[in-house]
């Protein structure tokens, strides 16, 4: 395993997200960094992974960057195109191993808020109206495990979120089970500074590893509660050279990796799609025919 020496924080996060996925997992995928993580996993250690997208598409094999949860990339070479209700019912049935969820606020039990920042105002007329749950509540309720992705700021990591959009462990201990939620709850919070995991008993988040160059003091300063730290604190594993290379292939214009949407011209975009078709179809063929996945 050759670790990359030259990589960005975004590329580290993509690799970290990818590592939460096992080969064969059914993964409820969104877009952005988690989506890239899923794409990366698919082209490295998890060739048999199945991506489920909210629009109702299952098992796509897209030769391009996924630009939305109902992008054509989601149906590209899919094994099944179905309805939203059916896809989410399959998740409620327990068929989805991993779900990736984000939010604007998180608390120590992994409850997420992506609905409203109330901030001394009201739910009806809040300080900031966020987009809302979308499928996040459902993923957090029913996926076998969820991976939360959120950047660290003291106003984001708070004792009690303004609104629980996506349930984590609620008040900790067995509160989640008592509420009747079928899914396993959060397995990790991947942040821009560290990875947190959850105590199996109290269900409180603790720091499991800090990213290269980040101190535990910095992490603690960005959390508004007294954050627990693993006695066996690790350094987050950096991405491998292969992971970085593939990540850049997946997002050649840096739309997610470098916020590159604003400067994307139509011609560059069409060119990106056409190149990507050729480059990624080759990458898939190589992986699928020479790699560990059975091609049947």
């Amino acid at each position, binding site marked *: 395993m050759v670790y990359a020496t030259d990589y960005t924080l975004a590329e580290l996060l993509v690799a970290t997200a990818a590592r939460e996925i096992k080969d064969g997992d059914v993964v409820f995928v969104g877009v*952005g960094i988690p989506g890239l993580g899923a794409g990366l996993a698919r082209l490295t250690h998890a060739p048999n992974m199945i991506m489920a*997208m*909210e*629009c*109702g*598409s299952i098992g796509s094999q897209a030769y*391009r960057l996924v*630009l*939305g*949860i*109902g*992008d*054509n990339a*989601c*149906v590209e*070479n899919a094994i099944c*195109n*179905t*309805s*939203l*209700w059916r896809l*989410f*019912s399959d998740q*409620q049935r327990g068929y989805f191993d991993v779900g990736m969820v984000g939010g604007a606020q998180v608390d120590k039990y992994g409850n997420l808020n992506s*609905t409203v920042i109330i901030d001394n105002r009201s739910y009806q*007329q809040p*300080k*900031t*109206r966020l*987009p*809302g*749950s*979308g*499928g*996040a*509540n*459902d993923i*957090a*309720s*029913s996926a076998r495990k969820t991976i939360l992705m959120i950047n660290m700021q003291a106003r984001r990591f708070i004792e009690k979120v303004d*609104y*629980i*959009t*996506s*349930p984590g462990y*609620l008040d900790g201990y067995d*509160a*989640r089970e008592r*509420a*009747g939620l*079928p899914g396993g709850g959060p397995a990790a919070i991947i942040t821009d500074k560290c990875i947190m995991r959850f105590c199996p008993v109290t269900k409180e988040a603790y720091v499991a590893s800090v990213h290269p160059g980040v101190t535990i003091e910095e992490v603690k300063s960005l959390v508004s509660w007294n954050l627990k730290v693993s006695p066996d604190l690790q350094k987050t594993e950096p991405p491998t050279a292969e992971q970085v290379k593939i990540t850049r292939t997946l997002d050649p214009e840096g*739309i997610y990796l470098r916020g590159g*949407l604003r400067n*994307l*011209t*139509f011609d560059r*975009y069409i060119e990106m*799609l*056409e190149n990507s*078709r050729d480059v990624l179809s080759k990458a898939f063929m190589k992986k699928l025919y020479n790699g560990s996945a059975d091609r049947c």
Partner: protein
Amino acid sequence: MFTAPEGKRKSADKTMTLTEAFKLFINNGDSIAFSGMGGSQCVAHTYELIRLGYRGMTLFGDSPCEAGDMLIGAGVVNRIEVAWCAYAVAGLGHNYRRAVEESIPAKIEVKEYSNYTMGLRFLSGAMNLPFLPTKSLLGSDLPTYNPEIKEMECPYTGERLALVPAARPDVAVVHVSRADKRGNCQNLGFISNAENIGRAAKKTIVTCEELVSTDEIRRNANLTFLPEYCVDAVVEVPFASHPWNFPYAYAYDIPFHAQQMEAYRTREGFLNWLDEWCFAAGSWDGYLRKVGWDRLFKLQQVERRFTLSSI
């Protein structure tokens, strides 16, 4: 008590123009729902509703983009029951934010669900059942602020369940890959909630990228997700989802969308956009001409390179 609603209009030819269909089946104050999820959005339909000057409408939606944010900004909709409203990768729903945070252009009423439970609400309406149970929503704050989400103890197992009420919009607007004149609808690609929205509504307007013969429908009957008896009107509207993608038809015009979202950051920007792209353009054909058929053709052509379908 709810009795089974009347069947839809029966005719061997339900084709008409979008304006005719809207004028015939949509009234001020109606509740409405649109198909699509990210891609396949009902964009042409959103512009047409705004152009026709509808007011006081209620929107039932899962995760509407244009059909949520623009209808709120244009003052068409003043009540929404949704799971989410924004433009995903392209940007935030500034009109939605302005309405909730600052009552611009007007105060709106919001009832929140999740994507799955909105899907269940449409399914419930499609099945003519007053509610469906689910394991979503439990433990979260959605029921805290939405009294229509009820909880019950299962009479069989004792487990906790959340209940969501049926959504039965006055009108459904469903955009599909292909349909025949009778209203038999087929999609290549995902279905989102279209199959249930089209069934749950009292009146259903179908638009399609391509009108096909009934024989063509019969050749692939397993693809039909909405049969003619659910449908009142059929309109052929190619590129109806632009700038969004439509599966097996055209790619996402995300550079266009990014530009549009930039304009929407301010209220003036949004109103200018409407003036230019909705009112001055005069029709969806006008909008498409303004986008440019060469650009649309490129979006279609690039999509073809990714296509495997044998259908």
